[in-house]
């Protein structure tokens, strides 16, 4: 009995030691695990097969982290956006034909406004992580470039595409 007891004790101690050493080995070199962006904790819950949160899947990765309150279309802002499009985007994107990248007139029928802005502002991370961006890269073979667009300019770009989208929607309505 006392022999069994001591074996049991001995075994438990060994198991405990193995657990401790494993823990020690595992934790010792894990230097880079402090991506604790607590503000996003709810959003980063993995809820779908892609491994992305629902928010990320719908809206991409980038500085836009909550739904935009868009309001009525601002034509002045849209005109600003058109200028930005000409200088920073039009070298690769046409409105109605494939060029370096996809045709863009209907972009807001393909992605959310938030995804649109996040892609413009943060193409690299989306190309690395987002299934839609990855799919586009596989199709077009040229990485969407970071054109150093700031948040304000990205918002005006969005306004420009809201105008184009509205025109599309109205045209479709009148065709029906």
């Amino acid at each position, binding site marked *: 009995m006392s022999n069994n007891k*001591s074996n049991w004790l*001995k075994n438990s*101690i*060994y198991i405990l*030691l193995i657990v*401790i*050493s494993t823990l*020690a*080995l595992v*934790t*010792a*070199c894990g*230097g880079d695990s402090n991506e604790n962006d607590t503000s996003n904790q709810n959003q980063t819950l993995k809820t779908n097969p892609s491994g992305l949160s629902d928010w990320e899947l719908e809206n991409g990765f980038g500085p836009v982290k909550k739904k935009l309150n868009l309001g009525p279309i601002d034509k002045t802002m849209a005109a600003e956006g058109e200028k930005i499009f*000409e*200088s*920073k985007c*039009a*070298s*690769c994107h046409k409105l109605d034909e494939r*060029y*370096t990248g996809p045709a863009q007139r209907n972009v807001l029928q393909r992605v959310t406004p938030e995804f649109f802005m996040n892609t413009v502002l943060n193409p690299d991370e989306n190309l690395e992580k987002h299934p839609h961006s990855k799919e586009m890269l596989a199709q077009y*073979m*040229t*990485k969407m*470039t*970071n*054109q*150093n*667009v700031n948040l304000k300019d990205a918002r005006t770009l969005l306004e420009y595409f809201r105008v184009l989208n509205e025109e599309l929607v109205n045209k479709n309505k009148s065709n029906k």
Partner: protein
Amino acid sequence: MNRRYLKAFLIGISVVAAFVILHYGCQESKDLTAGDEAGRVYVAPGTYDEFYLFTSGGFSGQIGVYGLPSGRMFRVIPVFAQDPEKAWGYSEETKPMFMTSHGFIPWDDAHHPKLSQTDGIADGRWIFINANNTPRIARVDLTTFKTAEIIEIPNSGGNHGSPFLTENTEYVVASTRFSIPIPNKDVPINSFKENFKGTISFIKVDKEGAMNVEFQILVPGFNYDLAHAGKGPSHGWAFFTSYNTEQANTLLEVNASQNDKDFIAAVNWKKAEEYVAQGKFKTFNTSYFRNYFDEKKHMGFSEEKTSVKVLIPEECPGLIYYLPTPKSPHGVDVDPTGEYIAAGGKLASVIVVHSFSKMLKAIENKEFETTIDGIPVLKYESVIGGEVTNPGLGPLHTEFDGNGYGYTSSFISSEIVKWKIGTWEVVDRIPAYYSIGHLCVPGGDTRKPWGKYVIALNKITKDRYLPTGPELTQSAQLIDISGDKMKLLLDFPTIGEPHYAQAIPADILMKNSKKIYPIEENSHPYGIKAEKDARVVREGNVVHVYMSTIRTHFAPDNIEGIKVGDVVYFHITNLEQDWDIPHGFAVKGLQNSELLVMPGATESIMWQPLKEGVYPFYCTDFCSALHQEMSGYIRVSPKGSNVAITYGTGK
């Protein structure tokens, strides 16, 4: 039982020990190799060096940029020599940077890089470097690592003693290595003593960095060699070595080594400013060029200047004094406190260290030996602060570690000698392989050296590297000075001949490093801001191609209507706004270099097609998966044909 518990306890202790070792071992992985040289210079893949090191490119005319402690090379900054890789001196925008009073000069010999200072400490705004042959000083912008300005020095026969800075970069100083007739004229060479003069120049640097030759001092016709400005208490003064006070004009190795002592010229530049303000200068008519690069226009400009203010020592008492210094002194280096001025007498058996405070007292008491052309020569005994005996043969240059020690390079005995300021005793020495010239301690000529290393800049490598025929690599050596004993850590190759070098902590520069040129700020007259503005315009036989690049096409990429005899300018604007995405351009038969256009910049290259046919052009910098597709065609028709200009992309 007890033994079993003891055993378990011991195992437990070992596990905890293993945990501790692993944990701290991984966090401080660099310390695992502490004590061994390889580990001290190992910078793990993907991590950064601690210092930037800027080495002079010597006869390559450029500046080399390295990391320390790894010795890895990052960049060659083109300065005084054309560089086809970067179109430096080939593109229309950079040609003006090479203009001098002797015309377009495609090369020079660059010796002394010098970081700009604030309060006597390197501030990382700019680095200056001299052109030794056709006297000039360049200023390199350290946000772009690009040459921003080059100014020619008038009335100079060779700009060796340059570009040394005053404490707040008020002035860059220069002194002429070779004396010449001033103004230069046709005289017999053996009329040297009668006709030849030297100059010491003060080039004012404004807040934006723009340089202007503010005034010069006409000095006796010796060879002025190197310089350093004072700091702290000696701020307001600058010191210049001279040799050939014998004024020989042939076989200098013998004839300029006769005198027991030559001179260090001590210039009171604050006094000089007063004399200039009082109008006590002569205006010399001359010609020299100032060339500068406009970052917004992406274009260099060249302006000729035609006069300079010159102070004559005889007319300006108190402006300049000579400190007798043995023997053909080369380097002149001021210690971090500003009190001591160390001179490397090439042929001297001691390192002479002058005392600034004794110098001021000697001036006050008029302890003069003699006067040369209005310049009082102070008594050696009155200015000497100390002598370092047994410093090795051929002492040249001294840098300081901020902990009370000087480090002097000795060329002939090929070693670095460490000595203590104040007691003047030699405390350590280490051989250099081989024939060390300058040496560099990070911040070692400033008020607050960062210390840690000394870099030996060697003249000869002989058997240190794999042989490459008669010409061998140039080389530097990294030596640890953190302990009592100096310790050799690393040999690494450098470009050209590394004369002087300067180092600065990486974090001072990294945070200011420019990533792109914002396209909206591009005001190049031939630049375009959007692909829709790409076009081809004929003006007589000159054709301007306004072309854009982005991954992965040129616009336009098909051009027709060019004729033999045309002069074609390709103005390439890179519309990318992403870091590290330049695009290149070259067309078959281009008589110039390629272009390598940074994001948001515009550059132009000229082409004269000699024969009719179709000429491909392409991007020379691998830019994306479809880089091989980034190409186009230009149709060249015979002279006088009536093929109209047409162009486009994707049509």
